[in-house]
């Protein structure tokens, strides 16, 4: 489950985004009789698709006009935020970290942790390559879709194992091309997500996965973020959203079939695939999200800010951001769910 | 019949028609015609009488729908034993003037070292010695047609076919070219078949004239032209009473074909 999956086509998407930005700023100010809520989502299996599918928000807010727009990457969602074209978004930790740093400095807040990427993304080596540990990757060709959560996790895994990324030949490939290159024996290992991952695992050795990296303090996460101005003016809307998503997160654990049906309807996959994909991630309800590992409480902030700052530091190493702000900046951008209404 | 082998062109019972959407269109014949070395045969006839068709049959661009066409005793195919000058010069614009002649010499298997000398000779023969490096569109229509004649003569063909080559030129240029063509083609072994609709041109050039009837063309008149040509200027020839007599005879024959 990547949050920054990309496509060349998103370059083309810049045009409409620009156009949307030109008029976007005014439509959320809510001066008219009908307030507008503009939600950006991405087409991967997640509990938020249940909220969209069941129109939970639309029913809870009958006097609001709710629009759902599908984006294909966190980068394009950030672009839309810069133009003030959206209010709420489902977005990954890496683009979120980037957005909170200069030069983007996007005024939005992280209001919820939708999932922690688990074993749906993993580092696999071809059995024929003889690689059995991350340290064996020195001098080998390892593929990942650059700029994705898998790319981030691959570099984190190398760092953790004490392997210099410069000693490994990193190859930028789309998942379907990773599969093709793997079958030809052109690459020795790859960090990639399902469904390609499952194919590679049939004749591969899993060296690590994102669940293990998360346990070791290098998680890749999916958030809900809210435009600060929107959040301040529309607490009621945000509360309804949190209520709906918390219920959906609960349902993933208690009644995954219902969520999977909604997901399969929304992204056009089979129900079985949807269940398999949902199960590969880790879901935490709002109470669990307030644990010290994540949001924590107002009095003792959790480790989530540190995780975001880690991601920012990684981006800075890649020269993708200008500088890494102090931890306080990241803490200020986090609002624990359930704490919004003062609990 | 031994003389048959030496005939430049021999047409026996030849008919030719074109297939069109509206059905078969008879264009020429039946016609019998023999062209011998040293002959300057001019074909005169109204438009559409099959003059071009006759030349295309001899050149080998068309096969007759009936009868036999022989050239130098064999079935005609376009090649270097026949020179063709068309109404449009058809010079290759991607070549210079000299390049056009050079290509013809190359296709005639003239060895490379000889080609530039032969090119210069041919250009000089048509009075264009200086124009070799020019592009084909940078010279006048008359000069272009001279290059086309030089190009057609490059392989020293036994038979030269010319289809209204001067029709698009002004009267003055035309007369000058007529004079040049006579002097370029008085090689005794060579023969010329020259198509025109100008009676003046025909009488001035020909050693023999045939007049074709209206479509489908048949031979309405076949006369030898016996005019004194040696030691007489072109103007004197055009002004002679014999010339006027032939002119009158041919013109009457042509008029009869269209009435």
């Amino acid at each position, binding site marked *: 489950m990547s949050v920054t999956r990309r496509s060349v086509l998103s370059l083309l998407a810049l045009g409409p985004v620009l156009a949307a930005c030109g008029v976007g700023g005014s439509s959320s100010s809510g001066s008219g009789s009908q307030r507008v809520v503009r939600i950006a989502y991405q087409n991967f299996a997640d509990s938020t698709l249940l909220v969209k599918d069941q129109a939970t928000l639309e029913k809870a807010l009958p006097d609001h006009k709710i629009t759902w727009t599908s984006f294909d990457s966190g980068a394009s969602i*950030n672009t839309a935020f810069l133009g003030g074209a959206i209010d709420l978004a489902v977005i990954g930790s890496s683009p979120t970290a980037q957005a909170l740093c200069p030069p983007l400095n996007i005024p939005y807040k992280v209001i919820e942790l939708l999932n922690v990427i688990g074993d749906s993304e993993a580092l696999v080596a071809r059995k024929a390559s003889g690689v059995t540990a991350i340290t064996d990757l020195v001098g080998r060709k390892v593929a990942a879709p650059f700029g994705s959560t898998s790319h981030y996790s691959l570099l984190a895994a190398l760092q953790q194992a004490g392997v210099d990324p410069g000693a490994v030949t990193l190859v*930028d490939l789309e998942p379907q091309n990773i599969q093709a290159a793997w079958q030809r024996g052109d690459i020795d290992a790859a960090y990639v997500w399902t469904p390609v991952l499952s194919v590679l695992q049939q004749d591969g050795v899993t060296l690590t996965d994102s669940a293990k990296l998360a346990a070791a303090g290098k998680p890749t996460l999916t958030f809900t973020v809210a435009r600060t101005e929107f959040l301040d003016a529309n607490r009621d809307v945000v509360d309804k959203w949190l209520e709906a998503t918390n219920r959906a997160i609960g349902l993933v654990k208690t009644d995954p079939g219902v969520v999977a049906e909604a997901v399969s309807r929304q992204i056009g996959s089979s129900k079985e695939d949807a269940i398999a994909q949902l199960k590969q991630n880790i879901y935490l309800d709002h109470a669990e999200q307030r644990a010290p590992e994540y949001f924590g409480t107002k009095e003792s902030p959790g480790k989530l800010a540190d995780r975001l700052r880690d991601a920012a530091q990684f981006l800075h190493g890649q020269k993708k951001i200008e500088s890494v702000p102090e931890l306080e900046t990241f803490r200020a951008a986090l609002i624990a769910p359930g704490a919004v209404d003062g609990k | 019949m031994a003389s048959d082998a030496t005939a430049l062109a021999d047409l026996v019972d030849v008919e030719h028609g074109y297939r069109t959407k509206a059905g078969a269109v008879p264009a020429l014949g039946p016609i019998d015609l023999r062209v011998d070395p040293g002959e300057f045969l001019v074909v005169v006839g109204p438009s559409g009488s099959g003059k071009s068709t006759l030349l295309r049959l001899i050149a080998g661009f068309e096969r007759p729908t009936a009868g036999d066409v022989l050239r130098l005793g064999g079935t005609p195919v376009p090649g270097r034993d026949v020179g063709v000058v068309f109404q449009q010069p058809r010079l290759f614009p991607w070549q210079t003037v000299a390049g056009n002649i050079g290509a013809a010499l190359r296709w005639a298997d003239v060895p490379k070292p000889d080609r530039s000398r032969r090119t210069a000779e041919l250009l000089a023969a048509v009075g264009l010695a200086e124009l070799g490096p020019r592009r084909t*569109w940078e010279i006048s229509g008359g000069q272009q047609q001279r290059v086309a004649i030089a190009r057609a003569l490059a392989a020293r063909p036994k038979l030269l076919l010319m289809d209204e080559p001067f029709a698009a030129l002004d009267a003055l240029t035309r007369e000058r070219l007529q004079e040049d063509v006579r002097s370029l083609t008085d090689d005794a072994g060579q023969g010329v078949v020259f198509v025109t609709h100008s009676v003046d041109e025909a009488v001035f050039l020909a050693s023999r004239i045939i007049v074709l009837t209206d479509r489908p063309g048949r031979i309405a008149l076949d006369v030898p032209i016996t005019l004194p040509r040696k030691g007489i200027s072109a103007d004197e020839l055009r002004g002679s009473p014999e010339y006027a007599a032939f002119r009158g005879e041919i013109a009457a024959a042509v008029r009869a074909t269209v009435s």
Partner: protein
Amino acid sequence: MPQALAEVSDKPQGTARPASRAPRSTPAARTVLVRAAAVLVLLGVWQLLALAGFWPPVILPGPVQVWDQLLITSDAANGQGGYAGSTLLERLGVSLRRVGYGSAYGILIGVVLGLVMGLVPLVRAVTEPAVTFLRALPPLAYLSLLVIWFGIDEEPKVYLLMIAAFPPVAVATATAVTGVNRQYVEAAQALGASRGHVIASVILPASAPEIITGVRLAVGIAYSSVVAAETVNGADGIGGMVLNAQRYNQTSVVILGLFVIGITGLLIDTAIVGVQRALSPWRGLV
């Protein structure tokens, strides 16, 4: 009276002449001036729009920011070796090499196939639908197949560009060959030219202007496909830079990359037009 008439009739000529002659004397210089002025005006409008701040600079950087990126990404000693490990010039070289090979193979195949298509109607009937089919496919759609067949090194990129480049050349060549004036062919045949001579010395040169128009299209298509080609292990090219920058909202780098692609594409096209003029100066004259 005659004098008055002369004066009257002279007047319009006298006023018209200097006005119409001045531009005619230096049309090339004038064109360059007009173009330069147009570019300057566009740059000015762009800078003003950027300064006006309708959009944040991260979405619409101004020309100055893009220029800064040009300097930064050209600097090998800036701590990231230009941009993500390669300077702009290195990237341009890498991508031009790919486009060069892809276009060269594409043109070669296109001319040969187009020639056969134009000369043999049966071949044309069979291959034309296939060529048109290939032409309609978006390169990204068959990229994975190229990876399966040719791996992840230079081959899939060069072959992708080749497949993108050859159809316009094949179609242009086939059309040109079919349209060659029969009169030139007959003239050559009557001069003793063999079939080979006719093809090499008449059909090809007569078709050259249209073939080169096909080549212009082909090189343009190949160049615009370089971003797609470099999604396969092509992070070292100019398209790879655009892709990478776009993933991280580095809009000024994206715009820089697009400008570099656009301007070099324009220069290449100008060069091809020059070759076309040199090879077929008779175009439009005969």
